[in-house]
Every structure is written in C-alpha cells, then in structure tokens.
C-alpha cells in the first residue's frame, strides 16, 4: 500500500497487533488497520522527516521523532497533537518506557550542541506535560569524532536505557541519574536498528557490517549471529515461532561496482537457533514470490 512518497523510515505494530504505524521522510506518519490495509489517518504537523515512532501499550498515544528537532506526542485516535517537545538537534529515536508514563529520546548533534539522550515525563492522568526533560545525558565527542546514537530502547521494568551507536557500540545508561552502566562492542559498523522481543528478554541488532546479532537482554551476551551478504537494515524476532526476519538491501552505490548481483528488495527468514537462512521474500511493485 502506498502511503508515503519518500523512503519509509520506521514501521511498528501496536501492542495488540491491529494497527500499523508507518513513518517516512515525507513528514507525515500514518496509521493503518492491519486487517485490511485501510488507512485510519495521518498525523500532520511535523516539518521534517520522521526518523522514529513509538506507540504506547494502550494504543492511545503516539510519539514521533523528527528531523525538525521536535518530538511530538499525538492522540492515536484523532490525530491531535497533544504536545511538542523541542530538542536542539534532529531527533533520531524515541521509546516509551514500560508503563507508558515516561519516554526517552536521542537527538543528533547540531552545530555546537552535542548529541543527547533525554528522558521526559508524559503523565497519562491529565496533568500538564512538563516542558523540559527530567534527565539529559550528554554524549561528548570521542576524541575528535562525533559518535551518534542511532536507536534507543528501555529494558524490561525500566532498569536501563539501551542506546545503539553508529560505531557499533551499545551502551547502557541508568535512567535515574544518567550514569553509564555498561557498554559492549556489538558490531564493527553502524548499528541500524535494535529491537526487543515481546517479553524484553532478548534483543536483536541489525548492522551495516552485514550481520545481525541476537543478545540476551539481562547479561548482554551475544547468543547468535546471523550472517548475510548485505547490510542489514532492520530485524525482528518472531513471537510465535523461533524465527528472525531480516530486512536488508544493497546500497544504490554498490550496484555499479558489483557485476552479477543486483540489489533486491527482500526480507529474509532465519531460524533463531540454527542461524540458517531458510526463506526469503522478494517484493517489487507486484507479486511477492516466496523462495527457499
């Protein structure tokens, strides 16, 4: 279904699975019914590409992170913008905490401001939304290079903030005081996305270094590694089956240099335990062919 004119940046199902939220670089996130693919509505108001969105547990409020340096809170049902949180740089990621009473955002550096992680309160009982963040974590330059966060997620029970960076690192922060709790070098290149499974016991990272890794969320140990021959853009853990879905693609630039293989739009299925690829779905303006 075509709802956006620009590349899609993020899609997310709500907790119950009946709604699909999509956002792209075209400034307007949409929400669709998953039963029939019909669009429910759009959220107008952003002035920049939407980089990330997150729906709360009750599917009543939606958070969107945009390149216009704001994060907006919306009422899911009628598209009304409830609040706008202003940041100092393009907002790259947003994530509701468990309980949907607070959320965290990551923003890119902009001019003299460093990249930041911010935690905001978003009371659901009708009390006014505070303007500023409850906690602000500064991400200073590493030497002379800027290392930017690409993804943020809360761990189960809001114990820590997991932040993935574009140099392949994952860092854990304490959300009460902003201290760095732990860090691991997960990948050699940029981590494109980090997603938890439903119970938040495992998470999967997808990276530009052609691999995707499955981690234990408690002790941060790499359990499995899924190798592909293309940069992995996104990965999800299937709930009902022991499968991993990877979304990836070949960059436009490398098509001119590689002779045989052409970049294809495909989703790959891996078995969670055996790390074997058992299927792929190729899709392209037309019928979808499953192949094994």
């Amino acid at each position, binding site marked *: 279904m075509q709802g956006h004119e620009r590349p899609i940046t993020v899609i997310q199902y709500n907790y119950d699975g009946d709604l699909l939220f*999509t956002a*792209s670089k075209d400034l307007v996130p949409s929400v669709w019914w998953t039963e029939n693919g019909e669009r429910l509505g759009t959220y107008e108001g952003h002035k920049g590409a939407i980089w990330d969105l997150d729906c709360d547990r009750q599917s009543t409020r939606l958070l969107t992170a945009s390149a216009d340096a704001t994060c907006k809170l919306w009422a899911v049902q009628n598209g009304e913008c409830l609040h706008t949180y202003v940041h100092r740089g393009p907002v790259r990621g947003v994530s509701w905490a468990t309980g949907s009473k607070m959320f965290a955002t990551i923003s890119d550096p902009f001019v003299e401001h460093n990249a930041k992680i911010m935690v905001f309160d978003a009371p659901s009982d009708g009390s006014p939304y505070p303007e500023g963040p409850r906690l602000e974590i500064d991400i200073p330059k590493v030497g002379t290079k800027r290392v930017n966060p690409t993804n943020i997620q809360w761990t189960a029970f809001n114990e820590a903030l997991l932040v993935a960076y574009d140099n392949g690192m994952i860092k854990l922060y304490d959300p009460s005081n902003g201290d760095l709790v732990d860090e691991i070098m997960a990948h050699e290149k940029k981590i494109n996305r980090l997603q938890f499974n439903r119970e938040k016991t495992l998470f999967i990272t997808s990276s530009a270094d052609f691999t995707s890794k499955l981690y234990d969320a408690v002790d941060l140990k790499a359990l499995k590694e899924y190798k592909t021959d293309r940069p992995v853009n996104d990965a999800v853990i299937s709930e009902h089956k022991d499968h991993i879905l990877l979304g*990836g*693609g070949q960059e436009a*630039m490398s098509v001119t240099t590689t002779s045989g293989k052409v970049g294809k739009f495909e989703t790959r299925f891996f078995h969670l335990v055996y790390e074997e690829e058992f299927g792929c779905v190729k899709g392209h303006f037309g019928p979808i062919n499953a192949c094994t």
Partner: protein
Amino acid sequence: MCQGTFWTYQCLYVVLLCCCDLFLVIVFQFVCSPLSYTLLNITVAINPNGRNYASGAEDGYVRLHKFDKSYLDMKDPVPEADEEEKVAEE
C-alpha cells in the same frame, strides 16, 4: 542510469555527514529517479499475533505480508536429543 544512481547515493552520504536534513530533501528532488532494482528494504515489523508482517522500503511503499498456512504450520527441525528423550519416556 547507473551513473545517476551512483551520484544520488553519493550526495546522500555527504549530506548525512553534514547532519542537515533540509539539504537532503533538496538533493532527493533534483537527482532522485527511483530505480526498481536498487530498492532498499529499510524496515520490518512483525505483528504480535504472528500471522502477518510488514516491510517498508525506499520507494515509500509499505507491504503487508500474510503468512501462508504452510508457514504457520511449518514445524522447525528438532534436534535429535529431544527425540531420544521422548523415546526413553515411552
């Protein structure tokens, strides 16, 4: 056409380094010509009910995929150790 693609992506890459998204929009409008064989599948999400999944791509399309019955019924291979245990119990 191939050259065009190359140029498009190069511009993108440079712009990302500058961290200025407004510029990125302009580049896309001037140079972008969607080429079917270079689609990037940028994001995937699986429905919590396990029956369908969605993928979003560079071309702005979001594709909803429904799993076949054969996929849903598909049994994953079980390691031999479990089978031996079952036999022992019987």
